[in-house]
């Protein structure tokens, strides 16, 4: 079983999506732990002016990544696989690249499944 951290940071990502993606990884032999940063990212209200929405959209992933607490960060640093489950989560995963120099840091569930298959092949 590969310990896999699945990170979500977009407030628009629903619980159904989170459980479906976690289930897909578990079915492929991952020991999944969900890192939920969705509440740490500001919601971008559609009625706000375009410049405001643009600034929010750019800053939201970084603000969400600040929601990682020290304990979670320490566990991510030694994780063999960290997966960005949505677009906003890429920034959080990317910020772990220096702390975690050995694990796979991937974008998306299909890439995570491929990484799990590769790890299974190595075993």
């Amino acid at each position, binding site marked *: 079983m590969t310990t896999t951290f699945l990170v979500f940071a977009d407030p628009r990502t629903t619980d159904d999506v989170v459980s479906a993606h976690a289930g897909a990884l578990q079915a492929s032999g991952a020991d999944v732990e969900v890192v939920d940063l969705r509440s740490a990212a500001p919601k971008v209200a559609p009625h706000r002016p375009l410049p405001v929405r643009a600034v929010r959209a*750019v800053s939201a*992933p*970084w603000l969400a990544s600040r929601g990682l607490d020290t304990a979670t960060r320490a566990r991510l640093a030694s994780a063999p696989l*960290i997966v*960005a489950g949505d*677009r906003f989560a*890429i*920034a959080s*995963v*990317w910020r772990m*690249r220096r702390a975690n120099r050995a694990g*796979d*840091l*991937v*974008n*998306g*569930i*299909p*890439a995570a*499944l*491929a990484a799990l298959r590769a790890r299974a092949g190595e075993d």
Partner: protein
Amino acid sequence: MTSAPHLLYVAWGFPPSRAGGVYRALATVNAFAAQGWRVTVLTADRETYARYTGADPSLEAQVDPRIEVVRVPFDWPAQDTDVRRYSFLRVALPPVWHRIRRLADQIGFPEPSYGPWLPALRRAAAAVHARRPVDLTIATANPHVTFGAAHDLFRRSGVPYVMDYRDAWRLDVFTGVETRRRQSRAGRVEARMIRDAREVWFVNEPIRAWHAAHDPEHAAAMHVVANGWDPTLLEFPLERPDPDGRGIRFAYLGTVTPKVPLAEVLDGWRLALAEGTVPAGSTLTIGGHLGYFSVPQGRLADLVTGAADAGVSYAGPVPKASVGEFYANADVLVLALGSGRYVTSGKVYEYVATGRPIVAVHDAENATTSVLSGHPLVASVTSVDAAGVAAALAEGVRLARSSDPDEQERVRELALAYSRDHQLAPRIAALTESVTR
């Protein structure tokens, strides 16, 4: 010319790539080698396929050992899923990064993603020519950057070349819409390359006719070299099973692209089972990659998984060396294709060679219709929807249980006409004569 002529073949996808166009490339170089040509292939490195499109290692053994393969490293940042390799700009402003990337890709050659490969291809082609003079280049597309390398060698050293279109550059084969105008940069580059080409090959007559109509001055150099089935990769003839007294084993083999009407096939399958026109215990096995890339496309995977309760299973990618076994375990084959009069299928020829009845799920305008027109064991849909598919599946059951020797003989004759070497032979003969005289 006393020594063997030297062919330089330029292709992005070549074994161990599992992409659809690889089989045409493989058959072409093997056919030239078998006719006494010395063949050098310029292609991408193995890691490219493993990382992006998926690889079928069994295919490398099918390359004639006399052929030299030169691998040119290829980078495809837009498809990279390794977050560790992302730049700050890509993480912070993804749309901006993609826009800049797309523009930068096309500085040297007007083709996103592949344009930056041209300088390395040019150098590799020049090095091959310097080591042993090339008599003919064949470049196969897409990607069209391969044409750029062939054209460059022509301009610098006068080496004649063939453009082999497996698809089209300025024509969307699914919609029939012209995607780039002739006056566009890509259109102008293509026009120059067609003007200088010794021959231009297309996979079917509708695509050839479109290009001939748009470029009548060079229509005489345009030829149809249809895809075919590969006798070296498929047992022929395949023994026909007797499905009496049991469920029918339907099977689909091929890359399931988003253009394939998979949802309609599965809806029709459920309907036919519910109506009892497909007997209980029947199965539908889907083999091949789900999507163009090595990682399965989520929506397609969900569709297949969701139909597991109806006897639908996913066999995963099938190595080329195992396709004969896959077909041997099927009673009826399902040919599901995207719509469009310019759409052709490489898989249809293999389907014909198996001798199995075919359930054809595509619109009548599809270029594949003409390939199957002489086939006596085809159940075509009247419409690409659940009801149409269900009716065709029912007809497939009837065909699977019929065993008319005359029909079998007609299928066999059709299959022989569609073997890959049969398609290539006239062009190889003509090109051999033109470079050796």
